[in-house]
């Protein structure tokens, strides 16, 4: 591949652009200088560490190492999804519902992509598995967090309507279905929007990266399409599972609405 090699000097020149932002902040008394600096340093340190880790991980071809890294990623995604919810389930469920849903969705979609589409040898090679899982999880996380937050918030706001249905003898699945529909729609909107805008409003990051790395645009586009479909599929599965889990937890076997199981 004929990509241009970047050295540390190039990175420094790019970093100098931040000085302009710093100057603006000082001139207009925005008070952003400090957080700008902290964020930039974090970005550099985090990415450098990830680079080192990836170099080490890609060097091995152990399925166990790949699985371990994948599980750590799912763990972080679960935490992030929970942290983004204003309303969440109490106790371990607050973390577990999102993490389980994303874990299942992300891993199954990634395994499908590796075994049926990309087919590297061996299929669990971390150089393929980790980036794909990362892209699917990153988007799935947004969808799941939005959907869960919407579902739980709506359940609290519309508790009287839900209980009115329950009081008339509707089963819990039917009483919660309207809320689940709303929440699923909210969770799917980001990926629908980004599919609709891809190539017109923005060039997807992965495609841009591949083109910069010297991949022929036609191939880069096909890769991007596959990734978009994987993301959409993974998000759909994740949102659905998370909502099914959350509606189980928010009701009980006597078909009651259990808002006492919300984190207060």
């Amino acid at each position, binding site marked *: 591949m004929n990509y241009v090699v970047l050295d540390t000097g190039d990175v420094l020149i790019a970093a100098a652009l931040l000085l302009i932002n710093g100057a603006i902040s000082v001139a207009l008394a925005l008070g952003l200088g400090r957080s700008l600096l902290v964020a930039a340093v974090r970005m550099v340190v985090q990415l450098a560490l990830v680079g080192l880790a990836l170099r080490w991980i890609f060097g091995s071809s152990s399925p166990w190492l790949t699985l371990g890294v994948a599980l750590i990623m799912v763990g972080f995604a679960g935490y992030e999804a929970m942290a983004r919810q204003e309303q969440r389930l109490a106790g371990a469920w607050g973390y577990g519902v999102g993490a389980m849903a994303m874990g299942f969705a992300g891993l199954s979609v990634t395994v499908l992509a590796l075994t049926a589409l990309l087919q590297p040898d061996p299929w669990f090679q971390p150089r393929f598995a980790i980036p794909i899982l990362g892209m699917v999880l990153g988007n799935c996380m947004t969808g799941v967090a939005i959907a869960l937050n919407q579902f739980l918030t709506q359940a609290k706001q*519309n508790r*009287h*309507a*839900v*209980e*009115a*249905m*329950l*009081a*008339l*003898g*509707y*089963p819990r699945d039917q009483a919660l279905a*309207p809320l689940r529909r709303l929440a699923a729609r909210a969770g799917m909107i980001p990926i629908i929007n980004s599919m609709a805008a891809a190539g017109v409003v923005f060039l997807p990051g992965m495609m841009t990266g591949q083109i910069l790395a010297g991949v022929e645009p036609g191939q880069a586009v096909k890769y991007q399409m596959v990734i978009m479909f994987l993301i959409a599929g993974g998000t759909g599965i994740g949102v659905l599972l998370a909502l099914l889990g959350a509606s189980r937890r928010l009701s*009980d*076997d*006597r*078909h*009651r*609405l259990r808002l006492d199981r919300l984190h207060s």
Partner: protein
Amino acid sequence: MPGLERATGGAVLARGAPDMSLLEVRGLHHQRLRCCDFSVAAGTVATVTGPSGAGKTQLLRAIADLDPAAGEVFLNGAGRAGIAAPHWRRQVSYVAATPAWWGASVRDHFEPDQFDGAARLLDDAGLGAEALDWPVDRLSTGETQRIGLIRAVARSPQALLLDEPTSGLDEDSRKRIERLFERLLGDGVAIIVAAHHHGRLEELALTRLGVAPGGVVTRVAG
């Protein structure tokens, strides 16, 4: 049934025959509710009185199994623990003081086979059958209350648990709803009503319960 009646001790209806008990409450309690044992016969009324916030609503919700509670409630001698919750609530229907809506129009809150019955009930309640097509966000308090009641009655439950059913009604509407209650009682429906003023139901009541702050429900003399 005789076994069940014995277990309630002296708490059986004074005037109703024990073997006619439709709904029987035994040992019902949770954190904010402690209820004495009582039963309500088919076609009779039990009233629940007490200061606001004492736990009248808690009692009705616990009977409808909308809140987790220990103890047992029987319908025609069958314990609710052995009955699926949706089925239980179709027979023992709780009507909230301010009914909430899940659809856009009144009609959305009835199943198609209930449309005719609902139209007749709306007419009886002084709203007219055309109320079926009213949007719910324009209903007044009194309309909300009456339609909320009709929503439950149209499903033909055996027992109605009514929370302040006539508090927001004018004189004429209240009389119409009371006539509806009398008709339901005549059909054998049992009614437990929680309110500050029970109106006509007060005169019909065979069982009178009082709720003290903290959710302590006791039988009131009379």
